[in-house]
């Protein structure tokens, strides 16, 4: 979460927001003409010697390693220009020194020809460990709620599509990415300040993509009586196709929107929240409650729930099932796109963001009970909160593991989910 980054030095925040991937300063006067990376490790003003730093190329192959000397300085010659990452080996740190932010133990960067680049690994005592527990817990809870709301919004379509057609859609994450990337392109083309109207346009785009997929792909396949397992595998193919088409146009980098990238956090008692995240929370709550009202109070919502409950019965009582399914795809695609825009605002936009979210959406949907919209909301909130709260006790690298583990546990104990109706699923 970006809000965690606000705890790091203000300088670092600016750097991260610029997407510079951790490079603090660039020095083009390379000593020997070759590409290299360098830096100085200090903690509390003292140099930290004997720490190993390893550089990898884009494929994860090791291309060089270096150790900090008595002045804390290190330097690794690099094989050439390109995309790299460098990792600080935490095992070689002295016992009383830690990475100030454990997520910044690996930095990604690119090198130009002849460039010697300075990388900064901020060391010191982890400020999060120093902070008192209750404030930290409230902050993690808030971060979890923000994340949970975003997952919930994106997952409603996934759950309703399963409820009405039985399709386990592995390509749902790409609807999320599509929304975020579409808003990004509009934002960049129209300049700063345009995100406010780029978001609704992206929602319309996402809805159109969802409906287009239903009309152009899923409905014809259902009409051909394609089996559900076949449909599942096709959705995986579709996910690969869409994700990489998006990458083709957007590129592999992760970038922030032009708007709201850097903001001063507001302090409310124990918790800090940027105005940007606050808007995301309020907007998500409004959208999710509107969806709830739609499902409970309108004829259309009743029809959706009826089709989801029992398709044949709904059809025989005069509901136009095909139309209801199309509307669900419209709604699900739009909500997923909006979730993508919000995720892009809170974190960054990348072509992998939807696929990364997919398993968490599945976890949320299964937790709440596959096929129900309200279950998806409740389950997603649980997933979001568990993910962020786990960082209080465990490493942030493992935060998604807990959400997935809870999903497996729920399947074991209560396979129908928190809000699901008991039926045989085995």
């Amino acid at each position, binding site marked *: 979460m970006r809000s965690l980054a606000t705890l790091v030095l203000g300088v670092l925040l600016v750097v991260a927001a610029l997407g510079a991937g951790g490079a603090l300063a660039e020095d083009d006067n390379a000593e020997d003409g070759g590409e290299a990376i360098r830096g100085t490790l200090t903690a509390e003003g003292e140099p930290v010697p004997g720490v190993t730093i390893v550089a990898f190329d884009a494929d994860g192959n090791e291309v060089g390693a270096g150790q900090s000397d008595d002045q804390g300085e290190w330097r690794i010659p690099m094989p050439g220009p390109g995309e790299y990452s460098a990792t600080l080996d935490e095992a070689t740190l002295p016992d009383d020194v830690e990475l100030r932010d454990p997520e910044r133990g690996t930095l990604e960067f690119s090198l130009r020809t002849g460039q010697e680049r300075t990388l900064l690994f901020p060391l010191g005592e982890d400020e999060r460990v120093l902070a008192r527990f209750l404030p930290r817990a409230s902050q993690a809870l808030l971060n979890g709620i923000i994340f949970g709301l975003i997952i919930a919004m994106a997952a409603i379509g996934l759950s309703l599509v399963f409820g009405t057609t039985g399709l386990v859609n592995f390509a749902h994450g790409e609807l999320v990415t599509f929304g975020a990337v579409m808003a990004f392109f509009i934002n960049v083309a129209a300049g700063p300040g345009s995100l406010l109207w780029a978001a609704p346009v992206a929602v319309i785009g996402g809805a159109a993509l969802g409906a287009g997929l239903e009309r152009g792909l899923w409905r014809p396949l259902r009409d051909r009586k394609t089996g559900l397992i076949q449909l599942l595998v096709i959705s995986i*193919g579709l996910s690969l196709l869409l994700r990489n088409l998006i990458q083709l146009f957007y590129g592999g980098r992760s970038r922030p929107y032009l708007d709201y990238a850097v903001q001063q956090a507001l302090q409310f008692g124990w918790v800090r929240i940027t105005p940007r995240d606050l808007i995301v929370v309020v907007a998500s709550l409004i959208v999710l409650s509107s969806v709830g009202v739609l499902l409970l109070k309108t004829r259309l919502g009743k029809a959706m729930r009826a089709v989801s409950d029992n398709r044949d019965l709904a059809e025989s009582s005069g509901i136009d099932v095909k139309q209801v399914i199309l509307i669900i795809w419209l709604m699900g695609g739009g909500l997923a796109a909006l979730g993508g825009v919000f995720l892009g605002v809170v974190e960054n936009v990348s072509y992998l963001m939807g696929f990364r979210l997919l398993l968490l959406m599945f976890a949320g949907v299964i937790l709440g009970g596959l096929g129900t919209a309200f279950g998806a909301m409740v389950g997603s909130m649980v997933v979001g909160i568990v993910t962020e709260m786990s960082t209080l006790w465990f490493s942030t690298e493992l935060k998604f593991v807990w959400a997935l583990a809870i999903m497996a546990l729920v399947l074991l104990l209560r396979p129908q989910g928190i809000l699901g109706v008991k039926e045989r699923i085995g």
Partner: protein
Amino acid sequence: MDFERILIDGLRAAVGPEAVIYALAAIGLNMHFGYTGLLNFGQAGFMLVGAYGVSITVVTFGGSMWLGILVGLLAAAFLALLLGIPTLRLRADYLAIVTIAAAEILRFVFRSSAANPVTRGVFGQQQFADAFYAINPIPEGAYGFWLISFGSHRRLWVIVVGWGLVLLCCLLVWALVRSPWGRVLKSIREDEDAARSLGKNVFSYKMQSLVLGGAIGSLGGMVLVIFQQQNHPDIWLPLVTFYAYTILILGGPARVFGPVAGSVIFWFLLSSFDTFLRQARATGVVPPELLGTEALGAIRLATVGLALMLLMAFRPQGIFGHRREMQLDV
């Protein structure tokens, strides 16, 4: 455009270690999906534990590589048990989600800094297969015949042992699926309740299939890291499983040699397509600025995705399968 180059690159991959690795992964999946109807989307996880069984035994504990192979196989069997007990009673689509999640959990855990002392986390492990290359009887040099290049004596050694392993696994699968045991598996795939009503312990059969297929998949993982002499958590992305599925469906599920044919054809097409794109860039047919390295990768993956969709929609029995055997439903 140098078509001979395209052909040579395609053939090189079609007989090379890549084809061996994915043939093994797909033979395992064939056991799961083709014969038993289990939708295992965590094959990358089985390959991961196999690979780390080897590299951890050698690098972390200083054991022998051959012991490591045994450890890898046992780890894969153990993972299958651990995964199967909660999930095999679930419907196929739930199984798919849980297995892909389990594979991702494994990857996250193995790359975490908490696991650093054992797995070396994101640094990966290197140089653990010297014992394998030490017994290489092939004299030093580069090998090949006609247009097919086998590369160095080291690569040829991997190829020979690898294809031998593939053949053994095919023999095993062939013998198993024509036995009464195999017929029970197929009956579970066709109608689980019918098999159950005949007094077969469906859960136990599914578990045996999961263990066996997982172990064969883990062999694929071992071949990969022994060939590359390095192991890294991020080799084992869900994409590996998706490739294996594409290969399985291309060749034809529920056929003994389907995965093998699928892997050879898949890697031939993928590599020659790659070279074709590179040449299109080099000769200026496509402007180079439109086709960077990143774009090449994206086009390649998008094509695999499209192929998987089209195959599954129009020819789920692949090249060699029977349509009758692919009428699966949840």
